[in-house]
């Protein structure tokens, strides 16, 4: 339905922001997740977003392409008293950077607000179009 194109595009932005916030929340809640060095460490989830091609019947917008783990070296710490420690006394901390997550949280929150504002403005515009025939 391309009649309310601005609304469709803004909705896709809302969905992307929500999925991003979900991922950030997941990352922050797992900041203290410790794993054995034999396993994979907990890696921060990153949301990969791509643009929707604007065209016939499509108003554009954004969509979540994939959710991927943050690459990088594992955060190995020496903690011999930990039950998961290996023979060298090492465990793996989560590969989550709290300052990055907090910054992203603000951006995702603002992005959600901006898209919501877009929805309000578009609705007002469409509603004022209904006033044309009134007398």
């Amino acid at each position, binding site marked *: 339905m391309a009649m*309310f194109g601005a*609304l469709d595009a803004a909705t896709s932005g809302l*969905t992307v922001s929500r999925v991003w916030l979900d991922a950030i929340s997941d990352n922050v809640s797992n900041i203290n997740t410790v794993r054995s060095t034999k396993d994979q460490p907990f890696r921060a989830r990153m949301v990969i977003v791509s643009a929707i091609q604007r065209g016939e019947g499509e108003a554009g917008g954004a969509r979540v392409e994939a959710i991927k783990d943050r690459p990088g070296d594992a955060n190995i710490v020496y903690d011999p008293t930990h039950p998961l420690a290996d023979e060298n006394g090492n465990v793996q901390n989560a590969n989550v950077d709290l300052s990055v997550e907090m910054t992203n949280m603000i951006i995702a929150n603002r992005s959600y607000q901006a898209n919501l504002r877009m929805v309000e403005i578009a*609705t007002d515009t469409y509603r004022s179009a*209904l006033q044309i025939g*009134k007398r």
Partner: protein
Amino acid sequence: MECGNGSRLVHGGTRVNMTFFLRFCFFVASVLSGFGRAHQREHIMRVGDTTMSTIEWALGAESERQRVASNNIANINTPGFRSSRLDFEASLATAMDSNGSMAPQATTHAANTPQNINGNDVALEDETMILRKSSLHYDALAEALSMKFSTLRSAMGR
């Protein structure tokens, strides 16, 4: 050009032509407006025409669409719930093209949005946006219906 004609009209000989021209203009205007009125009347006289029944049906379908969206939102925490959508635009267009030989139908189908971990696939943004769009559509239809009524009222001379 107009100016040149005007200066010639001052002379008595051309004044007759001027009055004739004006009368001719009035005649043409009255014929045209009369034709317009007659043409309009043809449409107004059929009170229960397809416009009103179509709008009436579409209003009902829009409120059904809102019911479906509300049902989806109500089940946002139900594990395994799959949200559904209501479609009728294509069917309504076909029915209108068929000149009343076909009845429009509103059909529900699965939304097939990505599922959560508990199998639920209700996306709150999508549902609220459907409600918002539907409310805009409803307003537009109600406005169209009230315009139709006001046309009928002016045909009654009120």
